[in-house]
């Protein structure tokens, strides 16, 4: 399960999300293949976070979301997590007054029936991937720095052994070195068989690591294609890569 096998893991068809009378996401369709990294880029306020919220089941939406060929209609957030669909939200949503170790342990809550040995293995893997978390395991999550919080959020998500990991702005507020580290982990996760749906404002980085990309603007998809093509698209370059602005 290392290379892209081409079968759709996640398929979103004509998804719309309304807040009251306001439509935040309109008629969006996208797919993420198994073993691939798919990115959704777009300016702030385009509806990227809303899109992920709808796929995760946090927000009521219209349209169809199917995951491994099965419709997710009517499934709660927890049911989706149990099926291997895991979101790392923009706000990280850590358990601030609990220790790093507790946060990680709770990441495996949906897998509690697989036994302690499986949890232990997952934990070892996470600590191996993020040695910093091992150092800080007794510290309260609320006292971590921004980069460490993001690592903990990723680690907690990985404890749930996701098939599809959805990352909302993982580079947000992080130093370049940390961003680099996070993105290299994202690539490494794909190698480990985890498919990734990546929402990013750092369009250049996102298009570099991803296989396919979608451009979302005021709630609608305006462009999609191979990430390399999108990066070369002059319109994308001007609007999202800042080349228009930067001359």
């Amino acid at each position, binding site marked *: 399960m290392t290379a892209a096998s081409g079968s759709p893991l996640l398929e979103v068809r004509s998804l719309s999300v309304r807040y009251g009378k306001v439509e935040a996401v309109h008629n969006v369709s996208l797919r993420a293949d198994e073993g691939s990294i798919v990115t959704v880029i777009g300016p702030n306020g385009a509806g990227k976070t809303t899109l992920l919220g709808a796929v995760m089941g946090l927000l009521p939406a219209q349209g169809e979301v199917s995951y491994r060929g099965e419709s997710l209609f009517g499934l709660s957030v927890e049911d989706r*997590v149990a099926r291997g669909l*895991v*979101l790392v939200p923009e706000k990280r*949503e850590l*358990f601030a007054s609990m220790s790093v170790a507790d946060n990680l342990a709770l990441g495996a809550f949906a897998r509690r029936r697989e036994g302690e040995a499986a949890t232990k293995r997952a934990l070892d893997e996470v600590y191996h991937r993020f040695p910093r978390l091992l150092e800080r395991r007794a510290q309260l999550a609320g006292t971590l720095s921004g980069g460490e919080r993001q690592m903990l959020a990723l680690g907690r*998500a990985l404890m749930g052994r996701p098939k599809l990991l959805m990352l909302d702005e993982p580079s947000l507020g992080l130093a370049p070195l940390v961003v680099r580290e996070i993105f290299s982990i994202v690539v490494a996760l794909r190698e480990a068989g985890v498919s990734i749906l990546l929402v990013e404002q750092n369009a250049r980085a996102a298009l570099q690591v991803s296989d396919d990309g979608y451009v979302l603007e005021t709630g609608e998809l305006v462009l999609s294609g191979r990430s390399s093509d999108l990066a070369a698209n002059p319109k994308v370059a001007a609007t999202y890569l800042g080349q228009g602005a930067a001359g």
Partner: protein
Amino acid sequence: MDFSIAALLAQDGITNGAVYALLALSLVLVFAVTRVIWVPSGEFVAFSTLTLAGLQLGKASGIAGLLVAMAVVAGLLEVLSAFRQREWKRLPLRLAAWTGAPLAIAGVLKWAAPLAPPFVVQILLTLVAVTALGPLSYRIVYQPIAEASVLVLLIVSVALHFAMLGLGLWYFGAEGSRTPPFTSATFDWGGVLVSGQSLLVVATSVALIFVLALFFNRTLYGRALRATAVNRVGARLAGISPAFAGMLTFTLAALVCAFCGVLIGPITTVYYDSGFLVSLKGFVGAIIGGLSSYPLAAAGSLLVGLLESFSSFWASAFKEVIVFTLIIPVLLWRSLTSQHHDDDE
């Protein structure tokens, strides 16, 4: 007042305070996890005493009737929700849990009651039966509106309190009950007479608090409840369902209240409507803890117990006034020490 009276009052205060502390803990727990201000907690306490008193007389019809009624309603709700979601696969299991299990408990009670089992078994039966009411009331009343505002949840709590009061009168009758003391031993500690009964109540409370602390700090489920209290969205994203957390919380809280009922049974005569005032005192303790700090809530409850027992000596007519106005200076102190802030919900 001489020393021996003061010691007696203190002993009374600490004993009652220990019970209030348990109540305060369950109120804090329920509020932290589900945002429900659990007004009917007092009914759980009273029903527990009344159930135990009933078992003493070889009767269990009151609590059994309540369980059957709630089991039927919960079962109907499950069928309804299965029908709505067109999801029939899980229904048998859910019916077994929500209807079968409470019916079985009711059956066991009805069967065991006339056999006059030993006191310890009666206590166990009482704990099981009253605890079962916790998740049932969550399933029927709170789960359908788990996302509603604190105000609506509160009003629903009060409505449930009324309904349970009425049901209490129906199932347990209007007469009060008292259960026999666990022990009649007394100890002489340097001139102070300490009753074994008081020691047992305090020891049970402390042990229960200790077990709960272990549960919250060491077990995955305990940590899951804490996580839900800290960050609801984060908990959902980790796969902890709010309905599950709510059910577990109400089970624990009902168990704690059932213990309270067993503990106060020998101390006071309990009527179907005695619970409210008892739980309000637990409330005062919980408020002193800001509805969030367990140790402060326990300390506050102890203070309430002491204040109550000493004021009943000095100014018994104003006992309740003194206990409940205690909140005002506590709130004033909190108000002056904490930053005032945003109230958005």
